[in-house]
């Protein structure tokens, strides 16, 4: 076992990862600004959202700093427990959870509200890293191991799906598949899996039709045809596209977005925050944010490649995948490329659980990176 010291092994390496930490802080700062703008039409009531998000931000920064004091292998020791706690929390949501917009997602803990499904994504990454660290040989993992890993994924996936929260469930699967496909599976299995996937697709679509709830189906349908339901979810896509498109190159300016200021879009400070960015800051603003994200992903994958051990590599890859899929699914959804499934935009969307998970993912990346020379 390597040292698990509470001391910083190579303090200079924290400095080396300072740009990554700054990136996270800058993104969170942009998020605050956008939330301020998105909630400003609500008048005084909107301020409380900003204040809450500032609180979560500071909490996230503190949590991140504390985590950096520990060697990331602490996660290896606790992996199973983290997984169990998240699964229990996901079950507990049924008992003590709060219902919002027809879905049970929240657990109230004193002053804070947690969304266990957000933490489930991170737990998935940790438990997969633990599971595969000694199984990832030259030939890659065998079919049996991959099936077991998929079963590990299935438990939180199903629990989140029945909340029902299609978006988060989808992201959990995307994260697991990314880890399996890119890190551990061998070539033969990948080819097989590709063939089976194409074969099963029609059956999945048929069963999905039976399995999905009304509003989820409607959302998928409106994705295919936004005019299908002008009062329902399609309305969001149309209005969001108008907001984004009308932003043009330079945008309408801070607090000047007419779609934002006049429109009644209930989730614009959460899932549709990107449309505010696009409307008020235009193409330039969006490209800056997308570029920041891309730098973050580059750095994340780089850390995965250079990590000193399998656990760290898989962990770093998984965390990067987590952040990446959120950005792709959310931005794709807001622009009308993907169905409206309700996935937050990491760092930018309003919401404490999502913000904490984003900070923690970056903290894991930094942690893996700064301990890569210590044996």
């Amino acid at each position, binding site marked *: 076992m390597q040292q698990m010291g509470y001391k910083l092994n190579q303090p200079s390496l924290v400095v080396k990862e300072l740009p990554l930490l700054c990136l996270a802080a800058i993104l969170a700062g942009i998020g605050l600004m956008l939330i301020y703008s998105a909630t*400003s*039409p*609500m*008048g*005084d*009531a909107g301020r409380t959202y900003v204040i809450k998000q500032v609180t979560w931000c500071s909490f996230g920064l503190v949590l991140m700093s504390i985590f950096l004091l520990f060697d990331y292998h602490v996660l290896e020791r606790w992996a199973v427990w983290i997984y169990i706690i998240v699964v229990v929390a996901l079950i507990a949501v049924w008992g003590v959870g709060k219902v919002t917009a027809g879905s049970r997602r929240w657990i109230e803990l004193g002053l804070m509200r947690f969304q266990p499904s957000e933490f489930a994504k991170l737990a998935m990454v940790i438990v997969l890293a633990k599971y595969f*660290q*000694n199984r*990832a*040989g*030259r030939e*890659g993992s065998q079919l049996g191991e991959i099936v077991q890993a998929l079963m590990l994924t299935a438990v939180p996936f199903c629990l989140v799906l029945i909340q029902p929260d299609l978006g988060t469930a989808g992201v959990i699967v995307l994260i697991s598949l*990314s880890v399996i496909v*890119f*890190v551990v599976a061998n070539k033969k299995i990948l080819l097989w899996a590709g063939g089976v996937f194409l074969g099963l697709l029609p059956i999945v679509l048929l069963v999905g039709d039976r399995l999905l709830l009304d509003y989820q189906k409607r959302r998928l349908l409106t994705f295919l045809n936004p005019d299908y339901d*002008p*009062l329902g979810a399609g*309305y969001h896509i149309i*209005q969001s*596209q*108008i*907001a*984004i*498109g*009308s*932003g*043009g*190159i330079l945008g309408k300016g801070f607090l000047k977005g*007419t*779609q934002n*200021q*006049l*429109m*009644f879009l209930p989730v614009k400070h959460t899932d549709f925050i990107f449309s505010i960015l*696009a*409307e008020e800051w*235009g*193409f330039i603003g*969006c490209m800056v944010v*997308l570029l920041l994200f*891309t730098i973050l*992903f*580059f750095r994340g*994958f*780089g850390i*995965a*490649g250079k990590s000193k*051990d*399998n656990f760290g*590599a898989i962990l770093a*890859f998984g965390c990067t995948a987590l952040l*990446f899929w959120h*950005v*792709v699914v959310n*931005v*794709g959804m807001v*622009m*009308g*490329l993907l169905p409206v499934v309700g996935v937050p935009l990491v760092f930018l969307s309003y919401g404490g659980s999502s913000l904490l998970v984003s900070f923690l993912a970056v903290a894991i990346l930094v942690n893996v990176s700064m301990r890569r020379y210590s*044996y």
Partner: protein
Amino acid sequence: MAELPTREHFRDRIDLRVRIAIILMTLFMSVLAAKLWHLQLIQGDAYNEKSDSNRVRLARLTPTRGRILDVKGRVLAENTPSFVLSIVPGELEKPAELIQAYAPILGITPERMRNSIERSRSLPKYMHYPIKKNMSLEEVSLVRSRMSESRGVLLEVKPLRLYPGQDNLCHVMGITGEISQDELAKASRVGYQTGDYLGKTGIEKEYEGYLRGEEGWEQVEIDAKGRTLATMARKLPKNGADVILTVDSAFQRFVEEVFIHRAGSVVALDPDTGRVLAMVSKPGFDLNLFSPSISERQWKTLNSDALHPLENRATRGLYSPASTFKVITALAALSEKVITPDKKFVCKGQLELGGQVFRCWNPYGHGKVDLHRGLVESCDTYFYELGLKLGPDRISKYASLFGMGAPTGVGLPQELPGLVPTSAWKMRTYGDSWKDGETLTVAIGQGYLVCTPIQLAVMTAALSNGGKVLKPSIVSQIVAADGTTVFNHSPVVRWDIPVDPYHLSLLDSALVDVVADKRGTGKRCRIPGIRVHAKTGTSQVIRVKQRTKEEDQIPYHERTHAMFIAYVNDRPQKIALIIIVEHGGGGGASAAPLARKILARYYGVPDPGDPED
């Protein structure tokens, strides 16, 4: 290390796959960037046009406020349409031009309009903020002709509260008004916004939750000129419930008109159910003055009036019950067995105690007085003696038993509890022990003892119904907008006073003789054929130094309050009635005739007039 070889094998592969991952990631991000390019740069102009022309406005659909009806279904408060000019803060473009164009035709000063616009900025930008309410038809047509030139202005039809009875039942009904910042901050006022109306006093306040109903909303798409293109989503409002009072407004009106004096209160209860039959507080005011809002000048006049016309004396006026309280002292003395009904005391027109002289109202004295005569002729000396035997705490015990010292729960806002003094209370409040002289004043219903007219009415009802202290009620029914009855009054007996029926019957016959006996103080309330029980009272406002002056020579504010309690309980239609005439002189002289007129009207008999002396 055991896992080192594996790690190296793994490293070969992961290097390659991480590279593939980075390439795929870049690809995905490029797709996003491309779509963004397409939306913002290629289709940007088209979307910009759409965003200019296509806006969504959220309109609140205000529910119609419930009406207030009397027991016979007569409308006491209803709603009438009125025009309101509002601004939508988010659409306002040139406030200065707007002020210039609209302030003159609306008849409001530019400063006031600027203030309104300033205040509207704290609201959600798609909401409406009213700047002129209750517009005249001329104003409406002037505004209409200008509407197309200015953005962010909205003409709406809103209901206005109307009170057909004007000052009829004004204190009971209460007024509505614009919500204040303090009220907005209260958790119970969630869902209200600046500019909203809510009940401020009376029934309008107490039953706000029923009267208001549930707000709805409507999401409408509008074009650049503010025209509605389509309704996108809507939740219909639920109208407020009607509140039906226990009062017959015709009887109430009669009582109000009989009350010719400047100030005072009348309360009539059904002694078996506690239903309020009439509740008058004088002086009053026209409720319509406050709808939609009172002018500053009128407000100043009403608010600075020395007679406090806005105050509901029936629930908030504090008076010494004076001699009407002697009934309670008598019952206390009988129940506590400090006297027998036949026990006589000698009245010499005054009683000396500790060097102080306590006068009876009759300076010549009543001679030998027993319980019956004591009550009928209201001999003060007799009750001084009872007071001395009882002590303060046994008197206050019975005052409390009859419901004094605590709000009756009639269901009107800010009812006062009054005060029932005890020796412990005096020690707590003044840090001084109770004096015997104070017992004497309390025994005849003066001194520290004060109560509200509604408490006096509850006491009178308890004498009438055999000792049941009822919770009086002014609301008989609440009927929701869909016709279902959500509240139906049933009598609530708060407690039974433990009292010997024989003692009550003694009081009963004495109170009949107050009216029937030729020496009775309440003989001016005599109505042939109706067995009226009554007790008079004359409440001193200032300490009497000399009694030489005639009533009309005393300045108004030094004159005594005239008190009168009465009940009729041997008919199917019962009543407990109390009258307080502020500075009206003697209870027997000025309040009793009013009671006679009210009772005669209640029983549908002609007013027999004052009996000859």
